[in-house]
């Protein structure tokens, strides 16, 4: 069992969910403010980190 991989999987899905909500809050044009862009950037960086963990653990 890889608890680390499982946690990384859920964490990445949760981070992507935060991005989903961002899409909802900025629909239909999705023109993000500077602050929203910064938040989106942080979220995407965190998702990449979780995907890296998944790669390390599973491949």
């Amino acid at each position, binding site marked *: 069992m890889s608890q680390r991989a499982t946690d990384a999987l859920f964490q990445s899905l949760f981070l992507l969910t935060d991005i989903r909500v961002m899409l909802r809050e*900025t629909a239909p044009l999705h023109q993000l403010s500077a602050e929203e862009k910064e938040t989106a950037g942080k979220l995407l960086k965190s998702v990449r980190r979780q995907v890296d963990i998944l790669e390390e653990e599973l491949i």
Partner: protein
Amino acid sequence: MRCGGDIEARQVDETAINIDPIQVGGRLTADAMKAVIAYGDGYSVCDNCRKPFRLDYIKKPPIADFHADLASWLEMDSCRVVPGARRGFQAVCQALVKRGDPVILTALSHYTEFLGVESAGGVPREIPKDERNHITPDAAAETIERVIRTDGKTPALLFVEGVDYQFGNHHDIRGIAKVAHSYDIPVLYNGAYTVGILPVSGRDLGVDFVIGSGHKSMAAPAPSGLLATTEEYAEKIFATTAVKGDQTGRTFGIKEVAMMGCTLMGVTIMGMMASFPHVKERVLQWDEELRKGKIIIDALTSIEGTKILSDMPREHTLTRIDTRESFDRVAETHKKRGFYFTSALGKRGIAGVIPGATKVWKFNTYGMTAGQAEYTAGVFLDIATENGLAVNE
């Protein structure tokens, strides 16, 4: 894009501003979406179900606490989660209504309230609405008197909607409850459009039952809802099983008959629970929701010929509008007929209006950002001017 098989991924709220009158209060919070990811499997909340084996006793996840929190939040004594407000109506009717009993509903009651009465063999009797589309204490009193006179029985129960689904109007619940109680008739408050989006206190309203809808107003997956009641009625409504199998001698612990044992055993309750802290916060922001709604109402009423059929100024985000003298006039000669309107809305990223509707229709502005409210208002004005309708500054 597909979820699997022939199921298309639903992206309505990611790609558009949704103003569907029944959908907006039930959209999930981020936390509820995360709970859906983690608890999507069938009996996902039952991993740690221990004696006495009932949903509202489960401590991990904290479902027992959630039940207590719901009751105290609504200022009622007991609460259960149910698969939609309709199952709450049914549970109350099954406990209080006998075959042939008259039950008071209103001219603005939802069809599921009627079905709840019918499921128990009750006979629906409606309180008429007045010319302002309100249900009043006087009309309630007159209806009760009429029913006693014609049916020869005091009604077993009275339903009343905090905010009705047709106009989104508020009604004098305290006054109606006072009238009903003077005849010893218990009062069921239908909070499908209030519980979860604006503050509700069962104690202040003076009602015996508060019913809410998770998927309509508590940012929860369907079907979900709640049934809260007072100490006086809790034992009757939540009566536990007393039957025994005649061959096996089996009995069924403390399962509640009207609840059919456990109710929301997975993703529905977890979504409801995950949203609850946000729901408690958002009801306190109701005035802000009305302010955002006003931006859109002001735009619509500036279009010549457009009339708001709901109370004005608006005290709810659900609104019934009459555009027969504005957008429908365009439809008379437009090549797309009535569909030009929803088509134009769709192209600009506004969803939730019934396709083809240009006469009398409803919309709900709940939950949008201020920017989205401004954008939506602008879209209505754009469509009006584009089609030659006069807009008053």
